[in-house]
């Protein structure tokens, strides 16, 4: 048995290592100050896909990412770790997309590049938006089952997948028919490292959007390599390529409107010093009961 797997991945600013210049004075993310990285939970998702590929030879793992030219780095990174290839979904019309417009674009692209997909796997959420909405919305738009908070794929046989998922206070095991959508938790197995031979093989992969304006692959260093090795040209899809409805894309397709952005500075409030005396302890208990913090 071989599977067709699509992994959804996103390039995000590294919000885990925030410096003093991480936000602009207007309160938006200063993308130039934060390095762009592979969204961490998407790496957990990729690992789940690669484990299935190890288990079922012949399985293909295709990465789809939406973003500007530099987001193709995510596809290369996934290929270094074992993915077969990928597509950069890129178009001015996709710009300014909220989760709804993003999931529309991704769902449309999946239908276009992998209509017979068995499994779509993505990270639970991206560290820039933290919404955890895109995976479930893609499932809805494609009319597929979804399993969120995936910890581990326990088995896959007879067209059914069994998954251990993380829930409040424990785990539960669920089963779904294929095809379906999984979103994977950061506590799932970490992604395997880059493989050195794959890095050597794919390091020159480029999407057309990454080329300087008015240049082609023939103008690049090692141009003949791109002739000999078609896999060095990464897949790229525009709005028109996937027949997307412009009204549902980008800003036009995004009902989310940002009304206001506030800078919040956390400050310590006045503190109260209690001793270990019975009186103080009782006082604290009464206070916490009154505020319904305990009891």
């Amino acid at each position, binding site marked *: 048995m071989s599977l067709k797997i699509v992994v959804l991945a996103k390039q995000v600013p590294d919000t885990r290592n925030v410096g003093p210049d991480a936000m602009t004075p207007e309160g938006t993310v200063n993308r130039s100050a934060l390095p762009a990285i592979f969204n961490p939970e998407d790496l957990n998702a990729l690992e789940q896909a690669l484990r299935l590929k190890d288990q079922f030879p012949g399985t293909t793992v295709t990465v789809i990412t939406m973003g500007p030219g530099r987001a193709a780095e995510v596809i290369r990174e996934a290929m270094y770790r074992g993915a077969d290839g990928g597509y950069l979904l890129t178009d001015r019309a996709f710009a300014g997309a909220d989760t709804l417009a993003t999931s529309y674009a991704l769902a449309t692209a999946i239908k276009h590049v992998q209509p017979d997909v068995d499994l779509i796997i993505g990270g639970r959420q991206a560290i820039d938006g933290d919404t955890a909405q895109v995976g479930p919305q893609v499932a809805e738009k494609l009319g597929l089952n979804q399993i969120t908070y995936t910890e581990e794929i326990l088995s896959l046989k007879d067209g059914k997948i069994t998954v251990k998922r993380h829930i409040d206070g424990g785990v539960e095991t669920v089963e779904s028919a294929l095809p379906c959508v999984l979103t994977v938790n950061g506590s799932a197995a970490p992604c*395997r*490292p*880059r*493989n*050195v031979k*794959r890095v*050597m*093989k794919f390091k020159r992969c480029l999407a057309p959007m990454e080329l300087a304006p008015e240049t082609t692959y023939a103008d690049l260093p*090692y141009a003949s390599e791109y002739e000999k*090795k078609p896999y060095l040209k990464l897949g790229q899809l525009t709005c028109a390529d996937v027949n997307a409805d412009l009204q549902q894309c980008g800003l036009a397709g995004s009902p989310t409107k940002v009304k206001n952005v506030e800078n919040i500075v956390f400050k310590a409030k006045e503190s109260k010093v209690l001793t270990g005396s019975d009186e103080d302890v009782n006082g604290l208990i009464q206070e916490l009961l009154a505020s319904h913090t305990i009891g």
Partner: protein
Amino acid sequence: MANYYNDIKEIKFELENSPLMERIVELKERSFEDKDKYDEAPQDFADAMDTYDKVLDIVGDITANVVAPNAEDVDAEGPHHENGRVRYASKTYENLEAMTQAGMNGMTMPRRYGGLNLPVTVYTAANEIVSTGDAGFENIWSLQDCIETLYCFGNEEQRQKYIPRVCKGETMSMDLTEPDAGSDLQSVMLKATFDEENNCWRLNGAKRFITNGDSDIHLVLARSEAGTRDGRGLSMFIYDKRDGGVDVRRIENKLGIHGSPTCELVYKNAKCELCGDRKLGLIKYVMSLMNGARLGIAAQSVGLSQAAYNEAIAYARDRKQFGKAIIEFPAVAEMISNIKARLDAGRALLYQTARYVDIYKALEDIARDRKLEPEERAELKQYSRLADAFTPLAKGMNSEYANQNGYDCIQVHGGSGFMLEYACQRIYRDARITSIYEGTTQLQTVAAIRYVTNGFYAQVIEDYEQLPFAPEYEGVMARIKAMAEKFNACTSSVKEAENQDLHDLCARHLYEMAADIIMCHLLLQNATKAPELFGKSLQVYVNLAEAEVWKHSALVARMTTESIENYKVS
């Protein structure tokens, strides 16, 4: 995210800033003949260098994010002895899996066997990096370079059988030491007999202190010539664990490198294959194996010195006493500056050695396929000699430095360093073995001393004096030249005495003087190219080296045929 390669600019400098690198790549890639055969092969020099950078980036990533975080647990748990087998500490398996998934095995082997065809210099950097994260794990992982000996001396059938397995992550060991044969390997008694009935060799006996002794593929030194008692009766054998017959009797309880199991092995009629020719086991193959292993220990030592530096400086910046960070106290800052100077000097020596090894090994490999041109033969001879002369310097000096740096690192930590809470105590313990195994420092001296007496080091030093350097270092150069004069005077006086005991007693001092001066020159070259990286280390190291050379010179001056009686103990 932390990366033990990208975070240490000096390693990248060592890789990129030698005029020898272009020649190494040219020889190793044989004018890029693999470029149309293998997708992963480089197209030209720049492409090869880019590849090396990417390889080490992955090694640095795995070391920082898998190996180093696991080091403490691996050290605490150690390996287990179960039913005659070794089970590693549980996180050792995580480390090995990450390395295998990344394809970091058989790194120097040709692509046709599944290897990466990397120069020794790049592999050495990988070794150093991994050792900074966990020297005990590096010990297991770097045994992959035993395959080099099988590649050089095994037959084609053996190469095809074993090399791809090592490239896929199977581990190796070299079974040399026995209870009564440590430094003196001529006394090896493990018996190898030919089994006529099954047309194979059989091993019977025991080995001791075998690093990673339960590995998948062993290279074994054994006595194939019954009745002999010296090195000429020993041959090299390959034992495949899949055939069975070798059990682990016990695992040693060691001071350091806990992650690496040191085993006592029992061979019970174990089936094995002869590697190369009979009787050449010790005199040819083990010597080759040893030189590779010694370079590996030199790299391990530099990695430990880097770890000592990292821990010392981090603690000294953080720890406050008398109202300020202790790094601000000159007495503490001096210790850290000395660690850094020894680290940079030792690393320069390590990579210079690795480059010499690369050129001669690549030429030797070409010679397996075609006759070398006369100028290539001369080049092979020159670099083989340089490699042979530099390897004992790199191993001996770096291992002693790793010990000193580990000691100073604990000293910087004060009382906290003596407690088992900080990484410095593991570094200190792990460093201790480096000046012992693969030949003690005393044996490195034995290997190196002829290059003192035959004037080879003196010639190398003279050649280095001719290299261009930045004008601001005129004064430094004058001081290095003065050290060389001291060294030459000491060498002459020892030679003139014509007394073997005196010669042996002074050997260590002469050896260290040569090494100190060579490292001064290498740092001078580095500082000329990158004063921002090496300027301070050069000045500090020259101060240290000068004091050392003066000290050794004073000692040698006091060692006479009469006074050496005072050094005799019974």
